[in-house]
């Protein structure tokens, strides 16, 4: 079948005589890749870049006539980030962690990230306004303020990280479970998750709440993950998801300490297989030297204590926190190898590929340039077996992978690397090749009808590393893994229209001065600040 493109969109047909023709026969054609969760821009990412010159100097990109220079490895500079995504056929990426006070920074960096469309999620789970309104049961007030915040920061979705824990970290503490009250605020993580889930519905946000659970990285935390999913079960309507649990591998640990740590993937998969209100992404681990960075301040401090590596912490007033620690995942470490197994177990045990998406929580589990490796593992039992043979014996014994025969098909890979993510994000013009879609297309030099990915996983890996063609908004930007044209994508943000806009009066301005150290008028990002804004208007129920 043929695809016709005009003016950046897929259309019914074009005049073949006048069109540029790309012969993709014998090749795999997919919508451009969509990455629902990758830390590529903003304060936390940039602190990571600054922290690690030793991560950069061996992985450089020389300036060409078409591209700017840059560096990798686990935290590439912005131009390099865009180019490397495009070379793999990706065209849309989501930056999942934006401290609202520093939103300008995130957007400045996104504007300097070429080749891809993007969006970003403001961190709202520990925002004082949210904590206070939810403590007082004022869901509609909370919704009005969240709507204002989404426009002020040009955000796309409500991001929640270790709800309640980040505020507790302001004084060096943490929360222990969903019902542990946040010091000084008298509200629990459960109330925060439920409250924001209700707010999300009231605002008709395109994506669900995007949640990094409490107790991340702690043995036994799969219980917290399940409880978090359960706590909004009653808020689901029909088959539509109401919560997205991100980088689920990191919250799927069984056991009571590092000695007894094992996989909780089976329990989580069982739950997800029987419930339709949840979506997940993997957070797959790669055996490499990478950098962990999340808004979960206390968790990152814990990682420093575990490894003794250098540690960056950045608490943001009134709102959130963040932490960065370099980390090496070793094959021979029983814990790391188990983590590697957990990510794949989740993807293979959850039957519906529309519920679990492929990510590494870049760069936490590994750099996004390792995606082709994950695709190979998902599609080939042999590939998994090969890696299993090299990992810690203890982990191999505990791993469920040897008993899992399932191998994802090319169609399922398309779902977990693009279609599913686009659907979860409600980006109706992405992740598919139907008429009306954005002409974001990836062509891979592999013939799905001739190659058996189960055996030829190395060929699969190679093909996904270097797209034969990447087309962005109808223009060929990559050929044979080389950037041939530099373009800049759009930044999506959700323009929530409430029936009564939040009143900006002297009281609010005074509250601003009490809560933050910036004036009210300097907080919101003006529309003209973004270089390529693409607002998505949404009508709220409040």
């Amino acid at each position, binding site marked *: 079948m043929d695809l016709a493109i005009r003016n950046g969109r897929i259309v019914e047909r074009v005049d073949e005589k006048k069109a540029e023709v790309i012969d993709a026969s014998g090749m795999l054609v997919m919508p451009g890749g969509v990455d629902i969760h990758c830390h590529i821009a903003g304060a936390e990412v940039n602190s990571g870049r600054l*922290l*690690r*010159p*030793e*991560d950069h100097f061996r992985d450089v990109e020389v300036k060409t006539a078409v591209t700017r220079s840059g560096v990798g490895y686990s935290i590439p500079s912005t131009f390099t980030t865009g180019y490397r995504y495009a070379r793999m056929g990706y065209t849309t990426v989501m930056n999942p962690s934006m401290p609202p006070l520093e939103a300008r920074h995130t957007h400045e960096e996104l504007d300097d990230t070429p080749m891809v469309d993007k969006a970003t999620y403001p961190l709202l789970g520990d925002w004082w306004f949210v904590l206070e309104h939810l403590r007082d049961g004022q869901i509609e007030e909370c919704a009005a303020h969240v709507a204002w915040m989404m426009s002020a920061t040009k955000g796309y979705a409500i991001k929640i990280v270790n709800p309640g824990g980040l505020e507790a970290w302001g004084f060096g503490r943490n929360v222990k479970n969903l019902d542990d009250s946040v010091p000084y605020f008298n509200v629990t993580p459960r109330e925060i998750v439920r409250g924001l889930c209700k707010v999300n519905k009231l605002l008709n946000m395109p994506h669900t709440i995007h949640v990094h659970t409490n107790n991340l990285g702690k043995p036994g935390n799969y219980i917290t993950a399940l409880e978090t999913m359960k706590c909004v079960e009653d808020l689901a309507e029909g088959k539509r998801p109401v919560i997205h649990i991100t980088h689920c591998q990191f919250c799927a640990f069984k056991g009571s300490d590092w000695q007894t740590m094992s996989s909780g993937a089976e329990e989580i998969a069982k739950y997800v297989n029987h419930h339709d209100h949840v979506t997940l992404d993997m957070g797959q681990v790669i055996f490499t030297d990478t950098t962990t960075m999340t808004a979960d301040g206390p968790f990152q401090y814990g990682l420093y204590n575990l490894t003794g590596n250098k540690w960056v912490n950045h608490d943001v007033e009134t709102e959130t926190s963040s932490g960065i620690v370099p980390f090496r995942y070793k094959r021979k470490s029983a814990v790391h190898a188990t983590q590697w197994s957990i990510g794949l177990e989740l993807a293979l045990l959850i039957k519906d590929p529309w519920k679990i998406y492929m990510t590494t929580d870049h760069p936490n589990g590994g750099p996004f340039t390792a995606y082709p490796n994950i695709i190979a593992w998902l599609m080939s039992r042999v590939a998994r077996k090969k890696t299993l043979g090299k990992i810690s014996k203890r982990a191999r014994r505990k791993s469920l992978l040897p008993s899992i025969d399932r191998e994802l098909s090319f169609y399922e890979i398309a779902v977990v690397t693009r279609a599913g993510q686009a659907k979860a994000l409600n980006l109706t013009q992405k992740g598919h090749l139907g008429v009306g879609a954005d002409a974001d297309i990836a062509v891979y030099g592999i013939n799905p009808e001739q190659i058996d990915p189960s055996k030829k996983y190395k060929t699969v890996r190679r093909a996904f590393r270097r797209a034969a063609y990447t087309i962005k908004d109808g223009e060929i930007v990559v050929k044979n893994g080389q950037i041939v044209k530099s373009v800049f994508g759009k930044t999506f943000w959700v323009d929530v229209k409430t029936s009564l806009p939040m009143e900006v009066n002297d009281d609010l301005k005074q509250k601003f001065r009490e809560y933050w150290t910036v004036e009210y008028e300097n907080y919101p990002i003006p529309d003209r600040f973004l270089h390529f804004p693409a607002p998505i208007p949404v009508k709220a129920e409040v």
Partner: protein
Amino acid sequence: MITLSPKHIFKVPVEAECISPDVFAEKSTKEIAMLQIWEGNRKRTIGDFFKIKHGTDSSSEEITIRISGDVGKVRRIGAGMSIGEIIIDGDIGMHLGEEMEGGIITVAGNAGSWVGSMMKNGTIEVKGNAGDYVGAAYRGSTRGMGGGTVIVHGNAGNEVGCFMRGGLIKVYGSVGEFVGIHMRKGTIFVQGNSEGRAGAEMTGGKIVVCGWVPSIVPTFTIDSIRPKVKINEETITGPFYMFFGDLAEDGNGRLYVSQTQNPHLAFYEKYL
């Protein structure tokens, strides 16, 4: 033996990583002349800057490169080399023998900073002075020199052996501040004086200073007085105050400081 003589004085930095026995092995004079080097932001060739005289030997095991003339601005000579010998008749620039894995480099004059940084094996001998960061790690990295030997007959600068994790550095002159900072393993020997803060934040390894030090970092604790100390096979006669540290890092490094040259440290003896 291949001899390179610079044709003129260099002003902007010149980077000549290709001047290495590994790269020159089995290449003709013409091929060597075509090797690329950087002069600032311009790509040049060895032939642009050096007169090349090719000796008669061609066995790659005995490749010797001799550089005669002022190469004080030429950087990264011998970087990554693993075989052969480089002899420099004058001064040499930064990053000499960086990450080298074997072979020998000898410098008749002074060397710039970062001599033998991140080296894994091999020997570098500087007859004159060396700059800062001898055997050090790259910024942000904890992987400094891991093996091999660096000998400096003159003085060396600050932070000698920063993040060192193996090998031997010997300075017959004096060193600046922070010799052995963040050291993990390995040995540093200083015959002359140290400007201060020797062994700061070390977690392992051995530092011997035969000369004067202004003070000892307060997070070190005196262990004993040693009559002598061993540097690989060599025995150095003391007596030395031996300190353990850096306790702020829970470190197990050993710092030997001459007793006779440092009478102002005598107050430590009351703790013995």
